[in-house]
């Protein structure tokens, strides 16, 4: 059959009848391409394309991770900042409180001191007054006795004399008081 066909082809050049040698060459050519392009080279590019997909997906994933990390760091940083601000305001408040407390203490202390000084002064004044009173009481007694003796001694002759006596006595008293003042001061 094949030989008949090839004879026919050779004689009449029927384009629908294959040349046997061309069948062989066709098989050979196709097999060469199938082995080199198909079996050797196509798997390589398939692998490369797969790796590329992996690389791109991996890259995207890595970028996502980095972004997430950055976001977390930022959050952490923000939280830290917030904490720091709170801490700072707390410290400031504390300092203010402490300052106020110190001022209050100082004020109290000063007031106490002032009170103490005033009290001391008052006590001194009181003591001096008491002293004056005691000395006065003693003197008034003696002076009254003296005056009475004078009044009696002068014998109540006339009113003019009496008044003179009283005046003199009073002058003496004043004189005495003045000298006493001079002494004390």
């Amino acid at each position, binding site marked *: 059959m094949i030989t008949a066909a090839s004879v026919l082809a050779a004689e009449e*050049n029927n*384009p*629908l*009848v*294959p*040349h*046997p*040698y*061309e*069948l062989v*060459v*066709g*098989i*050979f*050519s*196709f097999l*060469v*391409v*199938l082995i*080199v*392009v*198909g*079996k050797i*080279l*196509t*798997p*390589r*590019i*398939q*692998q*490369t*394309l797969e*790796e*590329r997909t992996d*690389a791109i997906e991996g890259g995207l994933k890595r970028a996502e991770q980095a972004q997430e990390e950055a976001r977390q760091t930022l959050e952490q940083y923000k939280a830290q900042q917030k904490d720091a601000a709170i801490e700072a305001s707390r410290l400031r408040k504390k300092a203010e409180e402490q300052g106020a407390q110190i001022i209050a203490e100082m004020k109290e202390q000063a007031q106490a001191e002032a009170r103490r000084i005033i009290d001391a002064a008052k006590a001194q004044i009181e003591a001096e007054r008491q002293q004056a009173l005691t000395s006065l009481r003693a003197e008034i007694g003696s002076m009254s006795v003296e005056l009475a003796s004078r009044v009696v001694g002068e014998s109540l002759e006339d009113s003019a004399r009496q008044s003179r006596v009283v005046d003199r006595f009073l002058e003496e008293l004043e004189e005495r008081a003045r000298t006493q003042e001079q002494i004390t001061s």
Partner: protein
Amino acid sequence: MNALTVLASSGGDEFQAPGPEIFDFPPLFSGGPAWLTKPVLFAVVGSLLICAFFWTAFAKPKLVPRGAQNLGEVGYMFVRDQIARPFLGKNTERWMPLLMSLFFLIWFWNIFSVIPIIQFPIASHIAFPIVLAIFVYCLKVYLGLRHQGAKYFTNMMPKGLPWPVYILLVPIEYLSTFIIAPFTHAVRLFANMFAGHMILAFFSLVGFWFIFEKPTVAGFGVGVVGVIVTILMTALELLIQFLQAFLFALLAAMYIQSGLEADH
């Protein structure tokens, strides 16, 4: 070059349209073996060229493609997304080697039709499409038996029809799947390339004959038309060459899938 040989053989003063004889080639050199003809030579050259191209592109593929790898990847993506995926789905990667080989080998062979000096579509010699079609056919039947067993012969029938219909349907289905499909698979490619080459040869001969060989005042216009049509047909041929390679690989993917799984 074809035009010259045809002219030499036609000899006379009358214009003679080129016939099927333009597909016959003597041995490459006188005294050489009869099988070593131009189509045979360029069939091998085509397969070596395609190996060389993909070797430069994919021998050491980089994650970041450069130069030839870019081009090769465009080709790979095209075959994968336009030819393999629509039919093979999840089986795509497994069958890419075969589909890459088929598509690019056929396309390179077809492109030779318009490359100066070569100017011959390898697939217009029916032996080459037959080899490829028979390979795909055997693969289809093998895969069908292996993946579906004896059910392969029943799975391909549409289900749920009234039984008298099957009397008609079964022979038609078997005829179409096992005899007509591989035949048309090969002949479609062959006939397209054959006819395309005839048309190009005819119009380029018209141009050559009426402008250079036998220039006459009346014939000059015809020659110019011949040249213009040749150029236009060359553009059309470029499209058809691509389309036929695409279609051949597409059908191969479809046949493979029909063997792999029952539903089609």
